[in-house]
């Protein structure tokens, strides 16, 4: 599993970094930097909370996506 993010929807409110700081930290301008996948099992419930708490629904939990070509 990994945390997916819609970068256009994200507007830098930072609740995600508050709720799962082990996986998400904020850059100098308040936007999330998400740790490389996959996400460790013991953090899954925290990640779910972070995803649910995003006020603009920018985050999602998904199976590790294959890198698209082209």
């Amino acid at each position, binding site marked *: 599993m990994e945390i997916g993010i*819609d*970068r*256009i*929807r*994200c*507007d*830098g409110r930072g609740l995600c970094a508050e709720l799962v700081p082990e996986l998400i930290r904020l*850059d*100098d*301008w*308040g*936007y999330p*930097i998400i740790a490389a996948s996959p996400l460790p099992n013991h953090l899954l419930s925290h990640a779910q909370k972070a995803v649910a708490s995003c006020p603009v629904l920018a985050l999602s939990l998904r199976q590790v996506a294959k890198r*698209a*070509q*082209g």
Partner: protein
Amino acid sequence: MSRLRLLAGPDLSLGPERLRAHVERLGPPPVPGHALIDSLEKSGLTGRGGASFSVARKWRSVARHGESPVIIVNGAEGEPQSLKDRVLMSTRPHLVLDGALVAARTLKASQVIVYVGEDHREAWAAMAGALAERPEPELRRARLVAAPPRYVAGESSAAVNLLDNSVASPTSKPQDPHESGVGGAPTLVQNVESLAQVALIARHGAEWFRSAGRRGAVGTVLITVAGAVPSPGVVEVEAGTTVREVLDMAGGAGPAARAVLIGGYFGAWVDFTVAQDLALEAAALREHGLGLGCGVVGVISSRGCGVCETARIMRYLAGESSAQCGPCFFGLRALADACGRIADKGANADDLARLHRWAKDVRGRGACRHPDGAVMFLQSALQTFAPEFSMHPAHWRANVGASGVA
């Protein structure tokens, strides 16, 4: 060294070739069989819009995703230094339209859209005039759509977005345009030069295409030569031609050549001594961690200033952010500001450390590839112009003549 195929025919200064002259010279437009995609695959043709992606693979992907795709003939040419698409459209519009026709018939497209930069008057007029001359129904129904004069307007998702929502901003791509583009239909976004090559391959075959090319590369490619050369402009050369050979066609880079920007503003700076022997071909460049991009080769001489030029280009790229995501808008702005400060006042260790850190933070975190392109460009500048960056004094600029990169 120059090998004219796309640009063969009447002198370019005569303007757009009319339909009758085009047909007299090359024969009627080819009727594609479904074997055309196989032919394209055998030819090894790669896209000329910047990503150098296999054209055959792209067409197969669109064909796989369903019925009645849309074809976008991409002549937006948002890269300021690049002239090749404009030159091609202004002088050989029917070659481009033949390619579009072949694509439309092979993929059974429902719509053809010709996307031309709104400020590119000659190209616009040539394509409009050429469309009016065509009898084929696919082209008579084609629409000519203006691309806004912004860097990102030529990006595939931006083109699709403009057609669907009237705004040429890139979008987050949960799906490929191949799968779901304009109005949800599978969409082929193909550069005008790529389509012109397709038009010739459809007539003469894959072997013919492969009969040009050097050092293992195939086909010909349009290159825009820019910067500190006597005759900048567009040339057509065999793929695999070296940078120095191409520069010689523009009058030569001269003994003071310092570095070459390969691939436009999303390309990379390379030291001239290394660059001059590089073969201009996607695969060969990839081995050096470089890309052909949109085929711009820009030279800067030691009379110019790599730091100032980099700062100028970073400021431009930061300004061209669509401001849809924070890392791109704020990150590129911070990087551009820092480069500008270094260009004005000189750098200290903190400045350079910050540039490296921000570059790393921004990369891969945009909704589209705009910040990545800008960051990789900057990282190549920091490497190639390392001595200039560390000792750049304010008075350096007084020494810059008019010979920086355009």
